[in-house]
């Protein structure tokens, strides 16, 4: 069973569209994250979220919004996609009080 799974694995879309990436974890973790990895392979935190609090990296445009229907899911919704949003987006999770994050396989988003 995949611990942290994301769908879709690949997403190609036009500028201006709205899209969502889904993430689910079956590890029973309390905290989930979204990271963005750019073309130079630099991984950067976008959001961290648990039942109590959403923490947003202030550099993330407000076109990006995480939505969590329950503890096991944290979806990423992106409005008005731009060319610069092209990247690989990784979902991750960790247990309460632990630094160790488990990553999903990534979603490669290409905006054309």
């Amino acid at each position, binding site marked *: 069973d995949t611990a942290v799974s994301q769908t879709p694995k690949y997403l190609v879309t036009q500028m201006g569209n709205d899209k969502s990436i889904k993430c689910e974890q079956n590890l029973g973790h*309390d905290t989930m994250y979204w990271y963005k990895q750019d073309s130079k392979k630099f991984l950067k935190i976008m959001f*961290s979220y648990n039942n109590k*609090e959403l*923490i947003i990296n202030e550099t993330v445009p407000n076109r990006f919004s995480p939505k969590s229907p329950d503890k096991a899911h944290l979806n990423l919704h992106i409005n008005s996609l731009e060319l610069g949003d092209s990247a690989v987006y990784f979902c991750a999770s960790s247990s309460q009080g632990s*630094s*160790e*994050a488990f990553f999903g*396989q990534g979603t490669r988003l290409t905006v054309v």
Partner: protein
Amino acid sequence: EDKVVQSPLSLVVHEGDTVTLNCSYEVTNFRSLLWYKQEKKAPTFLFMLTSSGIEKKSGRLSSILDKKELFSILNITATQTGDSAIYLCAVSRNSGAGSYQLTFGKGTKLSVIP
């Protein structure tokens, strides 16, 4: 702002060589330092270090943390072609409500040639 600097950015070695990857950091509310290996897809966890001077070892890989000098090294002995990957160093800090954000370095791309 938290900062993690890895060196070298890329490295090419022959099978059997020993390599040392470096990671220095500046972070407020430091919790731990983690090493990940990224091949084609997801970063996979290697080590988490929280205490200075205690070496962690897994097969041919080992790592140690120096909290006074704010750096860590990752050693790989007797390298194999399967070790070719990007090695990511990350530091975690408490970001509130039981969550820990990781700040990553830019990675070291290791290529092991036969």
